């Protein structure tokens, strides 16, 4: 059992609440930094891809997991970020690390503009509205040839800095990605421990009482959408370098759904969940490929095996662990933290008391 004695407010404000966090996240950090030593180029390249998905997932997590607004259109913003990065590098003579934040801010601005009409809708209607974004963007990418290259796609100039050229499949670019991921994590965590982040959670849980506490609902939602899309755009910009060649069908509805799957499997309402989810989504296809060799051909060579397994996993999580992988981890942690007295009911959703529907 662990007792944390609190002697100052700072203990609640800082990222790592007690020594245990330093140990576990310290190990994780060391493991991530030394990864190129014990992993081959292929695995490192996969990890880099997972990181760019994780960044996009963090953006979506802020919106879905913390603000409670569903988006089926985040592949569009992922794509806008990627194409903006490619266009910026092709058009101006700037370093890729300078272009990335510009691409992110540009995506965020488009997100803000779209948020104003979109966030007037809620629930399923918002999902449909954002779903349209994915579809519309794909058409724009195909038709706006002068900027996107249309069906032919668009080459992304290699990432280089002060004459050093990064290899997107090697350890050097992995470190760039890792650094950006840590930066984005810090930004998200900062936001969540400040008034705006708390307001986002308030909007998610009860709009009517958030409003009477002085939260401007519309502004909070639009801010959340703006930040969310900017971060997803940044993930897209990173992904552009990873891909090296952009094609319109790389940012379609399937990617949007993959992002959603990622954050649900990882654990809604936690930043860690976005990263865990990204690892699952990127590593699972590899695992399936390996598994195929051991399955009887009648199953192993079925078309649609991969989407089928993805769907199955999503359904299983929603049924058995709605709090995702990170939720499961928290339960295990709590079990040991409070060792002999853990009750199954601790995480059970209690029956909600009557909600006031008439004021919505």
């Amino acid at each position, binding site marked *: 059992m662990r007792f944390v004695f609190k002697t100052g*407010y*700072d203990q*609640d*404000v800082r990222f790592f609440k007690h020594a245990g966090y330093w140990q576990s996240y310290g190990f994780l950090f060391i493991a991530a930094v030394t990864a190129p030593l014990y992993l081959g180029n292929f695995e490192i390249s996969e990890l880099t891809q997972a990181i760019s998905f994780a960044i996009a997932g963090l953006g979506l997590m802020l919106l879905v997991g913390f603000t409670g607004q569903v988006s089926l259109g985040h592949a569009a913003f992922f794509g806008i970020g990627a194409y903006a990065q490619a266009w910026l590098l092709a058009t101006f003579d700037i370093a890729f690390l300078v272009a990335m934040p510009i691409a992110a801010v540009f995506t965020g601005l488009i997100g803000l503009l779209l948020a104003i009409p979109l966030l007037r809708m809620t629930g399923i209607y918002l999902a449909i509205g954002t779903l349209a974004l994915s579809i519309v963007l794909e058409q724009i990418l195909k038709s706006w040839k002068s900027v996107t290259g249309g069906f032919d796609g668009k080459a992304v100039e290699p990432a280089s800095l002060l004459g050093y050229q990064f290899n997107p499949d090697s350890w050097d670019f992995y470190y760039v990605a890792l650094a950006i991921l840590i930066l984005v994590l810090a*930004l998200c965590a*900062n*936001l969540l*421990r*400040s*008034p*705006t*982040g*708390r*307001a986002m*959670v*308030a909007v*998610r*849980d*009860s709009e*009517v*009482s*958030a*409003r*009477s*506490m*002085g*939260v*401007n*609902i519309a502004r909070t939602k639009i*801010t959340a959408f703006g*930040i969310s899309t900017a971060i997803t755009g940044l993930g897209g910009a990173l992904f552009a370098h990873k891909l090296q060649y952009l094609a319109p069908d790389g940012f379609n509805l399937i990617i949007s759904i993959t992002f959603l799957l990622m954050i649900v499997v990882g654990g809604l*309402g936690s930043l860690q969940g976005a990263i865990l989810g990204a690892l699952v989504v990127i590593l699972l296809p590899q695992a399936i490929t390996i598994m195929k060799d051991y399955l009887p051909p009648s199953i192993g060579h079925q078309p649609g095996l991969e989407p089928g397994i993805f769907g199955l996993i999503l359904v299983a999580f929603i049924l058995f662990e709605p709090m995702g992988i990170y939720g499961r981890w928290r339960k295990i942690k709590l079990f040991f933290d409070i060792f002999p007295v853990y009750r199954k009911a*601790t995480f059970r*959703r*209690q029956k*909600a*008391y*009557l*909600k*006031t529907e008439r*004021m919505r």
Partner: protein
Amino acid sequence: MSAVLSADDLTIRFGGLTAVDSVSFEVREREVYTIVGPNGAGKTTIFNLISRIYDPTEGRIRFGGEDITETPAHRIAGLGIARTFQNIELFEHATVLHNLLVGRHCKSRTNVFEELAFLPKVRRAEYEHREKVEEVIDFLDLQPYREQYIANLPYGVRKVVELARALCTEPKLLLLDEPASGLSVEETENVAFWIDDIKNDLGIAILMVEHDMSLVTEVSDRVMAMNDGRTIAEGTSDEVQNHPDVLRAYLGA
């Protein structure tokens, strides 16, 4: 004593239904003003009018001399009106501390960019908010629940957390929508003590809707009875309870 809040000829119609029909009243400084009435009398609707969730069809609402009839709902807390809800509207998947800190939202002066970078300014503001929150936690004896998720708390504690969240906004006027509904006898007594303390120690005026007449009698300075959206009696608790129209409204005699 001067009026903190005054409502003049407040009327709201939902289609053909007049939920509140030219109701006028005022809440004075350091006063507990209670609205009673049968279900559907329009009590909660008056609360929703004051917190600007509804727009009145007619009439004006003034708060501390300022006309708030057109003020957007999210500005109301900043002006100094806090409220609780009849059916508890807490942020369920957040801790008590988080809920109370949202109560400080109307006092926050930092923008989203400063927060993303978590500038020293934001950190200092966090400490100040936390200090105020701790005062309220001490006031309402919520210490054991600080880190708990609302979803894990019993009903009685949730009621107190909601009251605490309202107090965190440092209001001048507190709207309590059935603070004792669903509480045990002891918990109701606690509520009575707290209402007294809020009025006397913190100097906050209270507008309350409540059905528990013993609590109403114990804490209220003035009582208004409503039926079918109309005021039928106003005065002290005893006067209102013995008013013939009130008896008719409740007993149908």
